[in-house]
């Protein structure tokens, strides 16, 4: 995967020199291991900082909304689907973008890796399919596929949906995975079990809103959690407020979420926040046959009316 780095640098420098774009949004090495940062590269020198490895879990589509001028953006499968969503929602024009598509084989889960080791991890090296994780007093090799983020492990759209140029060969899509396995487990529970399951899931939430900030779909100028007249969601840690926040956040993503996993990646408490959006994704697929961000021409199910829309919930 790291071979992409050179290709991304080369493309970025070329499009910047040709004046096709004003800047290229990509990743640079973070100050901590497994924490790559977004980078706005505007010159050949800054484009030299661009990298690509298995820690590029943040969704870069988050950074293109309402931008002026032309932008180059490095996009893996889920990023490109979120870019499509942005184009559909008129947050950016397709011709403003030069998309450098990166076929992706999944990103690693830093929560999982941190939990595997007692000491602080100081360095993570990647070569091919193995990661060498080292800190003071230990150094160990792990297979990348064992430490993939959960959403990457069940991802069925690894290749970019739209792109102007590719940074590597397209990869094979995963076929034998069930993206909704966890939803099905919850669906089988009784109402009380479900309630307790989510109570347990959210018990550690500190309401930092990192999941909202990392989410490419959350671009409202004033978020419902910040509204105070009327105040829909209390600011407290009260379990009902926490749950209201998570439910409403999920609803705002209904029919738009691409399961990129950015919310889960940034959660400092390691809460599986995707459990909420996942259920709505499954409903969208079952009720409307819709998966977000696959085509520029189709309107999302919640802003269109069709005579055959399901309506058996209405008395």
């Amino acid at each position, binding site marked *: 995967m790291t071979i992409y780095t050179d290709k991304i640098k080369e493309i970025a420098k070329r499009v910047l020199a040709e004046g096709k774009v004003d800047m290229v949004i990509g990743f640079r090495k973070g100050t901590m291991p497994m924490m790559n940062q977004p980078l706005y590269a505007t010159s050949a020198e800054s484009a030299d900082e661009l990298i690509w490895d298995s820690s590029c879990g943040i969704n870069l589509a988050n950074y293109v909304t309402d931008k002026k001028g032309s932008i180059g953006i490095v996009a893996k499968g889920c990023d490109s689907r979120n870019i499509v969503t942005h184009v559909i929602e008129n947050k950016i024009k397709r011709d403003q973008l030069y998309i450098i598509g990166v076929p992706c084989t999944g990103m690693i889960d830093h929560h999982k890796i941190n939990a595997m080791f007692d000491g602080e991890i100081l360095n993570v090296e990647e070569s091919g399919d193995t990661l060498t994780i080292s800190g003071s007093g230990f150094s160990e090799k792990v297979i990348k596929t064992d430490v993939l983020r959960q959403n990457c492990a069940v991802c069925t759209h690894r290749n970019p949906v739209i792109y102007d140029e590719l940074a590597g060969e397209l990869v094979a899509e995963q076929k034998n995975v069930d993206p909704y396995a966890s939803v099905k487990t919850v669906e089988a529970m009784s*109402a009380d079990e*479900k*309630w307790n399951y989510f109570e347990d899931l959210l018990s550690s939430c500190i309401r930092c809103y990192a999941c909202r900030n990392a989410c490419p779909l959350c671009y409202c100028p004033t978020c419902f959690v910040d509204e105070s007249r009327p105040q829909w969601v209390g600011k407290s840690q009260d379990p*009902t*407020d926490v749950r209201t926040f998570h439910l409403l956040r999920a609803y705002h993503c209904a029919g738009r979420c691409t399961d990129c996993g950015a919310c889960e990646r940034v959660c400092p408490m390691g809460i599986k926040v995707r459990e909420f959006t996942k*259920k709505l994704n499954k409903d969208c697929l079952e009720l409307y046959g819709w998966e977000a961000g696959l085509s520029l021409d189709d309107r999302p199910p919640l802003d269109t009316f069709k005579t055959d829309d399901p309506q058996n*919930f*209405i*008395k």
Partner: protein
Amino acid sequence: MKNMLEHTGIEPGRLHFSWISSAESTKFVDVVKKITEEVKALDPHKKFVKTEPKVD
């Protein structure tokens, strides 16, 4: 909406949708009766109610 609330453990009978024309007063009465019966069959709602924080 209903699907999701149920998914997170609110009982199915707590949210109802219906479609009644302004001329259908009989249907209105029927639906109110039906919903009231369904909700009476459930225990009073406790889970999601926000209560005053406890002070020790």
